[in-house]
């Protein structure tokens, strides 16, 4: 394995480096010793750090007054807690949700998406009307593979009219685009630290005022009984520092769209048969999903890796799997096309030289495809 330091890393939707301010907060907290539940001074100091971090994260996401923020071990746990905790007998979710939402409950109703990658609002409305039992609608703010931004406010309006709660997996959106829970009216919001420059191993579930949940893991009564276990204090301090930095840098982060769009234009110029997913819709500024028909995702990823560029086929969790992306399939891609797609996700430090390296390596792949096609 060659040294990753000479690599161009374009897989920031899988995970992104911990920000220096977050690393400093982690190191500072690691140097102290205290269990936030202990009553002595070391414990009270830990408690104060914990609550200061909670306030910071709550403010960063626009938690409504009186709402609750529960720290978890990450986005997966937050999603599971949201889907199984409300006790709603009906769960409606979009066809492009992350596996942690898809696998959380077995009997969810799947709402299709438009070819552009946004939820089919008419189908959602019909599904809500088809059964009057109390429902929970789960929809992500922005998709992890295509970056397509969902019309969350509109979904909330439809759901509330039908008496349904809305859970929003905002793991990829927060820190990349503006997000305000109170303004959107969502009832539950999932967050993950390591997608925005905090450490892996920390996430949170935000709850609107008055909402109660059944805990997944119990014991000790921490997090108001919603999540037992000693809190990951260094990680939580790092999460708070990272989210504040990410929010402060949001305007600058939007400039990544210029780099991304330039890249996509160049790729299409090199190979007009390449396909972009979700590009007709509002997207996260850093994400691009592009297929090179006829060449498998795995082959492309390996070739790009050899050329010093790290990308992925889709979500990192399923990196080892060969089945086509459920997200692209839901958008109408044939299995063949979905199997030839890669996800390129830029980060806050990505520069034109990184994009150039990707484009050069990708054009070699496109030539290889032409040669293969010519031989066939």
């Amino acid at each position, binding site marked *: 394995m060659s040294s990753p330091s000479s690599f161009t890393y374009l897989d920031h939707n899988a995970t992104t*480096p911990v920000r220096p301010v977050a690393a400093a907060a982690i190191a500072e907290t690691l140097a102290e010793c205290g269990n936030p539940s202990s009553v002595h001074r070391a414990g009270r100091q830990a408690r104060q750090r914990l609550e200061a971090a909670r306030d910071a994260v709550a403010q960063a996401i626009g938690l409504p007054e009186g709402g609750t923020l529960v720290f978890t071990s990450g986005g997966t746990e937050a999603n599971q807690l949201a889907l199984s905790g409300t006790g709603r007998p009906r769960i409606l979710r979009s066809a492009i949700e992350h596996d942690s939402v898809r696998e959380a409950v077995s009997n969810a109703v799947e709402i299709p998406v438009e070819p552009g990658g946004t939820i089919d609002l008419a189908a959602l409305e019909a599904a809500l009307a088809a059964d009057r039992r109390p429902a929970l609608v789960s929809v992500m703010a922005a998709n992890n593979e295509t970056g397509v931004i969902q019309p969350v406010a509109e979904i909330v309006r439809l759901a509330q009219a039908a008496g349904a709660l809305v859970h929003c997996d905002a793991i990829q959106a927060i820190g990349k685009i503006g997000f305000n829970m109170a303004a959107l009216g969502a009832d539950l919001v999932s967050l993950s630290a390591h997608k925005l420059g905090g450490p892996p191993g920390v996430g949170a579930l935000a709850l609107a005022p008055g909402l109660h949940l059944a805990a997944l893991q119990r014991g000790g009564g921490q997090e108001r009984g919603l999540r037992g276990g000693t809190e990951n204090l260094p990680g939580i301090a790092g999460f708070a520092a990272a989210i504040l930095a990410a929010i402060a840098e949001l305007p600058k982060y939007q400039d990544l769209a210029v780099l991304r769009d330039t890249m996509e234009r160049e790729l299409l110029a090199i190979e007009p048969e390449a396909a972009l997913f979700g590009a007709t819709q509002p997207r996260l500024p850093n994400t691009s999903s592009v297929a090179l028909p006829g060449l498998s995702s795995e082959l492309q990823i390996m070739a790009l890796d050899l050329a010093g560029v790290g990308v992925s086929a889709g979500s990192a969790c399923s990196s080892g799997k060969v089945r086509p992306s459920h997200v692209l399939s839901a958008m109408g891609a044939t299995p063949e096309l979905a199997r030839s797609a890669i996800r390129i996700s830029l980060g806050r430090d990505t520069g034109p030289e990184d994009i150039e390296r990707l484009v050069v390596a990708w054009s070699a792949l496109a030539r290889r495809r032409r040669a293969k096609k010519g031989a066939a």
Partner: protein
Amino acid sequence: MNGVLRNATRPPPDAIYLDYQATTPADPRVVEAMLPWFTQRFGNPHSTGHGFGLEAAEAVETGRAQIAALIGAEPREIIFTSGATEANNLAIKGAARFLKGRRNGVVALATEHKCVLESVRDLGREGCEVEILPVESSGLVDLDRLDAALDERTALLSIMAANNEIGVLQDMAAIGALCRAKGVLLHSDAAQAFGKIPLDVQAMKLDLVSISGHKVYAPKGIGALYVRHRPRVRLEPLFSGGAQERGLRSGTLAPALCVALGEAAALAASEGPEEAVRLAALSRRLRDGLAARLDGIALNGDAEHRLPGNLNLRFAGVAALDLLAALPDVALSTGSACSSAEVEPSYVLKALGLDNESANGAVRIGFGRFTTEAEIDRAVTRIAEAVTRLRSGLA
């Protein structure tokens, strides 16, 4: 963090930390090993399509092997979790839910950690037959009584290797033999025992073992569950998703935290035996020092079978909360940190047969790797002075 803690109550610089069962300081060597994995080497260990992910995956596997080695397990038998609470919930609910319909009984001791008891109670609400066994006044379980509680309907027995309040060590090898003979799965919450006393999953016939990072000089937010491979123990996961950790625990692993727990295990493997001897000497020094200055001291829990870094004492006529209040520069506790803020007497001490007044007199003193002889001596003086003052009514 600038400003966030401006008005925080920081412990005074000369404060003595004697609450190692609540949480341990992270070992600087552990911190040094983990920090690069946040920033320079930041890959997602599940992104195996590029070098960043691969090196993170390798680091996770090294940590897993280090943890396995400390308890005589195979690396594939170690599942990373967010801590011991999750590991306990996963082991107990996971095993019982998987076996439901075949074996419905779940047995635990009255002195288990709250997260074990609450997991067991959750199972009771789901239709499992729950039995909570009493312990002797020493805190040890009577093996005949335990034997009588297990039968062909019992799915799982959960017994803590070392108690978090009174430090008592159960005879896990004898308990393991009992369980194996009856086909009962044995889970042990080893949050306090891992890295402190020898644990061997083969010799003790343990099927599931919960491990905590922040009790063994690694940070908070990481733990592990040992899940026996042969004969195979099957679990229903607590949450699903990307199917990481062999489908038993979905979610992106934190390589820095896995490295930290691995490093902590490696340090315990190399230094643990020597450290246990040093801590036992500190324990004697503390007890002898207090006994030389005070009458009316009682030890809660068995005197012989206990963690080297734990004493649970009561001082006749002195309420623990008064003593803690009189010692702001010594971090002690009345019991488990989770219940620190509660006014109810400890259920663990009540299970030993203590009355409310005695239970309310108990003080947990926990010490460890960074505790010095000088600190123990200073603590002895400070505690003896405070007890004398409180007994004279001059507090």
